[in-house]
């Protein structure tokens, strides 16, 4: 890994700063962000917030060494002055800051897995760049991991809450949303992290969570771990959805049942896509059929259906629906 450079050559991650003196007794943390065409203002706000949360957690003696790893899938480097950014963040919030300009769009799963390559920390925070962490986010998330059976904990997204249900007394939930999740490094090592071969953008977190549960870990939702996720509503109060979200959500509706031993459901969903009046969805269906013809189906997991849940169009029980 290059040290202290401003080089943003694709594939050459740059260590923007490092603080050699750091506690070794407390769990170490790696915070990962993958950028893609984010605004400078949005990136600044996100980094300010997570830096504040990291500094507070360190001051409170909750975490020790902390590293920020930023991956960038944008067509052009998103950070205008990475060295200056690194200098501003090393010290109170982080011991080291890495910036890795990929030079190609690796998606959510691929970008995070690329950054995971050298994971040496105890804990991994996967965070979306369109978020703003509450100051106590890391304190709250790490508190959940005091229970050794819990492998992944997700934050509470505001102002638009995720509709997925969780157990009110125990916090258990079907899967953890990749917009903001904290995972033990053991979980990452046991599962290999996300699966970029199967998922590009959406539902890689569902798959990661289910594989973690197959490995024996519990996943919980922590309502006090608040994170602002910059979602928008239409004038009807419905979530605004981009074409990319529609495309990859549709793909996941087939890929997940394929992977989790529900071929009949995968086929039904695939036919629905083929019958759709939406050309975008029909295009997704064609690609999936090609994959099926070429025998590129994923290995079937969880034949007994112990972790995978398919409830309507969702992958867990939902408290309410955004679709009506």
């Amino acid at each position, binding site marked *: 890994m290059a040290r202290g450079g401003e080089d943003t050559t694709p594939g050459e991650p740059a260590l923007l700063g490092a603080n050699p003196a750091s506690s070794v007794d407390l769990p170490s943390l790696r915070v990962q962000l993958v950028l893609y065409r984010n605004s400078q203002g949005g990136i600044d706000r996100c980094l300010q917030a997570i830096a504040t949360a990291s500094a507070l957690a360190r001051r409170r003696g909750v975490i020790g060494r902390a590293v920020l790893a930023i991956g960038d899938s944008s067509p052009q480097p998103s950070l205008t002055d990475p060295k200056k950014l690194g200098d501003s963040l090393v010290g109170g919030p982080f011991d080291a800051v890495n910036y890795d300009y990929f030079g190609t769009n690796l998606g959510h799963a691929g970008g995070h897995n690329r950054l995971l390559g050298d994971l040496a920390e105890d804990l991994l925070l996967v965070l979306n760049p369109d978020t*703003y962490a509450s*100051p106590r986010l890391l304190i709250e998330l790490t508190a959940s991991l005091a229970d050794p059976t819990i492998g992944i904990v997700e934050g509470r997204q*505001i102002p638009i809450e995720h509709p997925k249900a969780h157990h009110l007394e125990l916090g258990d939930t079907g899967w953890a949303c990749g917009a903001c999740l904290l995972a033990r490094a053991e979980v990452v090592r046991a599962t290999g992290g996300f699966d970029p071969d199967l998922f590009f953008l959406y539902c890689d977190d569902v798959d990661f969570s289910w594989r973690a549960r197959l490995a024996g870990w519990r996943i919980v939702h922590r*309502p006090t771990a*608040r994170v*602002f996720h*910059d979602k*928008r509503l239409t*004038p009807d109060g419905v979530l605004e959805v981009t074409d990319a979200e529609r495309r990859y959500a549709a793909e996941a509706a087939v890929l997940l049942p394929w992977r989790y031993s529900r071929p009949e459901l995968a086929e039904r969903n695939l036919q629905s896509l083929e019958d759709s009046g939406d050309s975008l969805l029909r295009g997704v269906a064609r690609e999936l059929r090609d994959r099926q013809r070429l025998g590129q189906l994923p290995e079937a997991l969880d034949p007994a259906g112990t972790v995978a849940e398919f409830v309507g169009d969702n992958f867990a029980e939902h408290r*309410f629906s955004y679709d009506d």
Partner: protein
Amino acid sequence: MTEDPLRYHFAFGEGTPYAHAVALLSEHAAVPGGVVVDLGCGFGAVAEPVRELGLEYLGVDSEPAGIKDLVGRGMEVLVGDLGRPEELMAEVAGALGGRPLAAILMLDSLEHLPNAYDVLGVLHRFAGEQGRAPLVVSIPNVTHVDLGVKLLLGRFDMTPTGLLDRTHVRFFSEAGLDEAMWAAGWFEVARKDFEMSQSDQHFPAGTVALEPASSLGQFLREVRASASPTAFINQFVRAYLPGPASRTPSATPEQEPFLSVLVRTQGKRPHTFVETLLSLAAQECADFEVLVLCHDVDASERARIEETIGEFHPAFSERVRVVDVCGGGRSRPLNVGAAEAAGRYLSVLDDDDVALGTWVGELRGLAETHPGMVVRIGVAEQWMKELPGAWDSEAGYEPVDRPRCPYPMTFDLLEHFQENQTPPSGFAVPRSLVTDLGQGWDESLPVYEDWDLLLRAASLCGVADAPVVGALYRRWRVGESSKTAHADHEWLAAKATVLSKIDSAPYLLGRGFVGRLHLAANERSDLENRLAGTEALAAALNTLLSEARAQIADLRGSTSWRLTSPIRRAGRFLATARRRRHPTAQSRQEAI
């Protein structure tokens, strides 16, 4: 033009500004038995009343007619010109001859002096040298409502005496007077301003805009009276003591943000409060400040609030101020916050509301294209429920439904008269509405204070809106919110009060409202016509029904009906038996 000196020969009497000045003298004269120096005394209307207070009187003027009159009344006088204040006050000191100075009077004279500021400075030094004697002034108010209204009509009528005396060379508003006095080092200690609801400028009679009975006159007087308490003051009659000179406090800070966000909190909802702050910290547009209005919050809760704010990044926390508010109802914190605010606009985000990331930016965008107007965007409503036994025990609440938008995206004043359709976070008002027009949240209302302000603001400012959702208004199934903290009768009473207030004065309606009203009237007419048709049909049916009943009654009374009664009973029995065997037959029977 030669002016008649006798025009200033006014008599002293109760209900005159002179009586007000003498009342101030009686309370604030520095030395019992000392000398009152009446600068620009004219005919010395207050000379005898001053003596009646046990004080000596020294009249000073350059106009011979008044001096001669005073001498004739046995008063001590000094002929001198305030155009040379240093020399004049040296002469006054000589005239005092070691006698103590009780007070300086300047009644309706400062406004005649081109060097008014210099004169006040010289008097300040003189009073300081003479035992810190007070200064009592009477000064015409150039912001009297009559003058404002006449300016609106393009009239500026100079007169021989009065508010627009032809010889006035200085014109004082209250702020101008304060500035002049502070600059010279005079500090106000008492006031007995002289009010006239109709001044000497209230002419010509019958001028529509001037007359309080006309709608326009009433409206203009309401606007002026709400703007400041000086609308009907004819003369500022005030007493001052000498102190250090100072500058007028700056009215506006140099860097005013677009928006001041008023966050009311009683410290009872720390977990939703942090979400409110979080949603503000995450705003795309940072051109705002936050005033956290701690309403009757105890010390420990306040410390917790401060700690919560202090944990945020300084880029946000340095834009947050905590303001303590004591007493009053739901409106009090908002008025306190508005008085503290620096933003060009004001909006309210309560401590259980959350903003979307574009909230401030959308409001600012509208304000930039519609300056001076109320800006309004959509708000989604989300029902929440409390979960006392939640696993992490703190954030015990969750949504029970997705956000929905029951409030119209477009502002309709007529519909707003019926019911409030804009939650507090859905609009921002220009701060000028509060600071310049004296509008604010009505502290007598237990609820609906936001609706009340919106209706008044909509009239005075107009409303610019955009069909975008900017915030979430959380409603609670269990737990505290205004909808449950107040009884139904309070809501009804408050609603009646709001509408009654609106209806008690002329109400300005914006462009397009008459068309809207016309449409509503047509719709009502259509409905009335349809209702009338329905009523006629109902009446006809009733007539038919009555006739049928009469025929049945006739039939039942007939001999043949009574004789066939056993047959009908047997028929009912058989029909019941058939229905038991064939349920579908029952359905058919009922359908028939």
